């Protein structure tokens, strides 16, 4: 049988970012997948090497709008690693607090988009509705909804007001109950289960072979988490579980993310409690960075983010290297997408929670007629959910 190619993107209603995929299909089955990147490349590493260490933090925050804590955190860890700079205890709790807030909003964002892709717009609206109080908390803590601008080498830039703590707690209580509700509703939904179980399986061996990180690997049974394996900031002072599932399908990735969100609310609660009692400075004054090199790691919502910095004793890095988690997670497509049906391809692509802004630090309209295929792809994915839903309603 002849093989057809389905181009997706670069400007596609599915992808908020510009990206170009090419699925090779044999009938209904995906046999190969190819990916063209570079649409988002803005030359961060190059710009960073022209800026001072403090300015670099502002820059790496703009690698990706969703991971706008993870990149700065890994970056300051790298600089602090050069000189073994100590961080005040209070600053460590504030860093962890902001990092976990980011994890909740990122996972809820993914949950909403995943729901949207399979035609569950209710889930989208729900998830994003309950994401708003999280952003509100970010605003209380850092002053911004998204780009927090709070990390500094040696601590944090802004303290959490004691007066703001009741407000934070109120928002947290609200998020807590709502997240548990959404998580239970999503986990127990028979249609979601039928739609996502066994779809896009990434086996334990493949997860290791492709060096997958984050929820992508944890859903396949690889218990890796930088927060526990190489604790920085306040992660060794708080109590939390690493969520691991075993099947590696899209449903398990969903479950891992949902349970992680609940763990994050626990960490946030502990941090806020500590902030009530732990007082002191929030920033160590760092005068200069001596020559040397350092690495920084942090568990971003999508996996391990890695920064490398080399200093020659001046006020700017002479080398800055970034490795984002999606960069290693995206190649797992070739293991998880092969052999599945076209209508499942979209949700499998989305299940990794790919972030191209991170990866490339960008669309191509190849042929408007061909591009129509891609709209059908979204329809295909949604109509499959509809079929399953009808089946369930019919059974009742």
């Amino acid at each position, binding site marked *: 049988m002849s093989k057809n190619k389905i181009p997706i993107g*670069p*400007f596609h*209603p599915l992808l*908020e*970012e*510009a990206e170009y995929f090419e699925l090779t299909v044999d009938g209904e089955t995906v046999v190969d997948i190819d990916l063209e990147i*570079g*649409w*988002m*490349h*803005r*030359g961060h590493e*190059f*710009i960073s090497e*022209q800026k001072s260490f403090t300015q670099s933090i*502002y*820059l790496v925050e*703009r*690698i*990706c*709008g*969703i991971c*706008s804590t993870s990149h700065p955190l890994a970056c300051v860890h790298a600089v602090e690693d050069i000189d073994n700079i100590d961080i005040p205890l209070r600053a460590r709790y504030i860093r962890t607090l902001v990092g976990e807030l980011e994890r909740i909003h990122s996972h809820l*964002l993914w949950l*909403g988009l995943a729901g949207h892709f399979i035609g569950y717009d209710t889930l*989208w*609206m729900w998830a*994003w*509705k309950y*994401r*708003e109080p999280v952003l509100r908390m970010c605003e209380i803590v850092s002053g911004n*909804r*998204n*780009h927090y601008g709070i990390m500094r080498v040696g601590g944090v830039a802004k303290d959490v007001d004691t007066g703001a703590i009741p407000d934070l707690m109120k928002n947290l209580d609200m998020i807590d109950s709502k997240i548990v509700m959404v998580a239970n509703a999503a986990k127990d939904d028979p249609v979601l289960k039928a739609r996502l179980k066994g779809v896009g399986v990434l086996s334990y061996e493949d997860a290791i072979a492709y060096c997958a990180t984050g929820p992508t690997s944890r859903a396949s049974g690889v218990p890796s988490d930088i927060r526990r394996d190489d604790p920085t900031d306040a992660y060794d002072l708080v109590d939390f579980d690493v969520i691991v599932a075993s099947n590696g399908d899209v449903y398990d990735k969903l479950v891992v993310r949902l349970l992680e969100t609940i763990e994050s609310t626990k960490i946030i609660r502990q941090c806020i409690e500590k902030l009530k009692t732990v007082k002191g400075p929030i920033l160590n004054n760092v005068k200069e960075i001596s020559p040397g090199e350092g690495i920084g790691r942090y568990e971003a919502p999508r996996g391990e983010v890695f920064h490398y910095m080399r200093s020659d004793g001046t006020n700017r890095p002479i080398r800055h290297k970034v490795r984002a988690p999606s960069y290693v997670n995206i190649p797992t497509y070739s293991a998880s997408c092969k052999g599945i049906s076209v209508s499942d391809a979209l949700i499998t692509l989305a299940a990794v929670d790919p*972030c191209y*802004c991170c990866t490339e630090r*960008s*669309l*191509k*309209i190849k042929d*408007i007629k061909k591009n129509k295929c891609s*709209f059908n792809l*979204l329809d295909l994915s949604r109509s499959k959910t509809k079929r399953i839903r009808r089946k369930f309603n019919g059974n009742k």
Partner: protein
Amino acid sequence: MGWYNKRLAKSLWVFHVSGSPCNNCDIEILDLLTPKYDVERLGIKLVGSVRQADVLLVTGVFNNKVAPKIKKLYEQAPKPVFVVAVGTCPASGCTFKDSYNTVEKREDVIPIDMYIPGCPPKPEAMIEAVAKLIGVLNG
């Protein structure tokens, strides 16, 4: 075209074009559709094809790879189409203006009618911008 613009202003259909942003402006645009802000009550709808768009919401500094495609998208949109640039990126280049891979003048790629400053702009600012656009269209 006054009569046409007035009819357009009743319900603006927007298409979202991301020209190498950091993703945040895009997320905030999607945020507009969700229950807290819900711009659909103002008749604003996000559409999946540029052929149905009245307004292009452009985000990001355009890099050299994406710029020709954005130009092509603009050419494919039915005229009149209004281009609203969301964020500091399309306005001034944000922190990326020194990069080797971004175009120097985004106005040369596509004509931009309106800028919303902010990195990222708050959703309230975006709603105000669209309300202003509706005001201008109504004359």
